[in-house]
């Protein structure tokens, strides 16, 4: 276990650094931050001064080198927009995102697994067909559109929830549900099909023949096996929610998390802040991946993390 973790962590560091390099290059391709920061009537001289202040006049490779050396020490530079350390802004905005992503993810996985299991019990029955249809809708409807429709319907029409912003739990409901919907869909579809496979597997049929109860058959024999496929998808979903879904949903609901911050930073060409957001998200993504792999080994005894080489 220890050796495995060490190996995975060193790989993770490499992945994060590669991501940083890619983001560094891309942020420098999308536009000139100095042009956005300066007023329209600024002169070439003003421009040169600001560039020198920000260190943008140095050769790009030197910038990259400094940037990575600083990043390793958790110094990601000052936000161009807010003129304070970017990492502080990201860490301030991180808790709301974690609340939103965890709420949406837990809701999505729980509902998805329940729907998947229930619909697998009678494949082709009306419950199953309804569940598959809902699952496909959840997967295919775009989140920004669902988000807007929910605001129109539940906030403006029925007045049940606030339209946007943050505060009490009532602010969380709509964004969490919108974030959860595609997760519910995909988890339900995957759980359903792997449950159907498991229920038709020889070992499940034989367990029935040996007198194992129906409840144990479904919840232990079949679901534990099906859980391995579900876990794979759940890992992707968590990463997707964090790195993609949160940006869309937070922007629609003005939820003050890192996704919303990332959008604001991009609009303002605040490349330092964009890099900081990506840095933190990348670290979380590789961590989630490691956790998923360790969970595999816990679910499936055939998976050995420390294979002696």
């Amino acid at each position, binding site marked *: 276990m220890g050796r495995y973790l060490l190996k995975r962590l060193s790989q993770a560091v490499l992945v994060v650094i590669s991501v940083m390099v890619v983001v560094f290059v891309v942020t420098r391709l999308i536009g000139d931050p100095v042009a956005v920061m300066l007023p329209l009537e600024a002169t070439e001289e003003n421009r040169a001064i600001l560039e020198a202040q920000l260190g943008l006049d140095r050769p790009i490779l030197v910038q990259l080198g400094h940037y990575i050396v600083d990043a390793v020490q958790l110094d990601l530079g000052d936000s161009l927009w807010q003129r304070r350390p970017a990492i502080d802004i990201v860490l301030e905005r991180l808790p709301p995102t974690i609340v939103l992503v965890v709420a949406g993810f837990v809701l999505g996985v729980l509902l998805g697994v329940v729907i998947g299991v229930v619909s697998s019990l009678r494949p082709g029955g009306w419950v199953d067909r309804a569940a598959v249809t809902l699952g496909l809708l959840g997967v295919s409807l775009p989140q920004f559109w669902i988000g807007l429709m929910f605001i129109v319907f539940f906030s403006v029409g029925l007045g049940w929830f606030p339209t946007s912003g943050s505060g009490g739990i009532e602010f969380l409901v709509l964004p969490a549900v919108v974030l959860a919907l595609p997760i519910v869909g995909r988890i339900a579809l995957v759980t359903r099909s792997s449950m159907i496979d498991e229920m038709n597997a020889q*070992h499940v049929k034989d367990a029935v023949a*040996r*007198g*194992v109860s129906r409840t144990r058959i479904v919840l232990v024999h079949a679901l534990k*096996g099906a859980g391995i496929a579900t876990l794979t998808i759940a890992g992707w979903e968590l990463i997707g929610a964090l790195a993609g879904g949160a940006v869309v949903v937070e922007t629609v609901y003005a939820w003050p998390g890192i996704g919303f911050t990332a959008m604001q930073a991009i609009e303002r060409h605040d490349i330092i802040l964009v890099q900081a957001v990506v840095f933190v998200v990348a670290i979380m993504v590789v961590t989630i991946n490691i956790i998923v792999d360790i969970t595999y080994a816990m679910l*499936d*005894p055939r998976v050995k993390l420390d294979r002696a080489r």
Partner: protein
Amino acid sequence: MSRREHLLEVRNLEVVYPARGGTVQAVRDVSFTVDEGESTGIVGESGSGKSTIARAALGLVELPGRIVGGEVLWRGRSLRNKKYARQVRGPEISVVSQDPMASMSPILTIGTQMTEVMVRHLDLGKKEAVVRAGDLLEKVGIPDPGRRLGQYPFEFSGGMQQRVVIAIALSCDPKMLIADEPTTALDVTTQAQILDLISSLRRDLGLSLLLITHDLGVVAGACDLLNVLYAGEIVESGTADELFYRPHHPYTAALLGSTPRLDVKAERLTAIEGQPPDLRQVVAGCSFAPRCPYATGRCESSPTLGTSSAGRACACWHPLDSHQGNLTGSEGRLGHA
């Protein structure tokens, strides 16, 4: 007819499966019984309906298969009653199936798979169940049961896995074991060990056995009574000795003739000519007639499985007597078919 109550009684069982181009008549008018302590074999080639019979004897013919006629009785009560069948499976009837690796959950310890049924059916506490599971493992010849209980199926070799499957099947002290091709997935030496184990457990525990196989070598030592299945019908039944040494039905004789023998040098393996009938069509007359060297016009009407002397029965218009035991070399008579 004896008034004695049979343990398992299958009476005029008819099972069909829907298929493209009609309905497959998988089991046609099959009747047999298994009594206390008795061991009965069902022999047939693939597709003859033997596994369907095994499922029916567990009350587990599931869709799309359907029982359309007859009865399966356990101690005189119908296993078509789902609630009764659920009570019976485990503490009364259990199974050992073909591939031991596929037969156990790969992600549950064998201890869990043994104790879960005990806790349900024997009213045992978790601790007592573990003790009993250890005893059972020892009984089926697995050393160091305490450690083994915490292991997973993939940590056992094939033969050991089948021993574990047998131990799981015996968890609730059943009266009858249904063994559906229990040795087919094993190598030959392991086969013999597993068959010996099943036989000795039968003696020790007074188990009844319903052994289902395509392999005459397997039933030879393990079964008292034999039913030969062809195209969903029992064509001959009797004691194992009788059937082996004096087969009456030409199919039984042909099956015996196609078993490779070590004491006879043969260039080619003997096979039965032709194919079993397509069970989607109604089979008129004797289903073996198209492949039978003895078939005559009379075989166009169905022979019935009449009981003759000594509990023997044979569904054939032209039963062989003891002098004509072997069919090989008599292909010349096929022209009359």
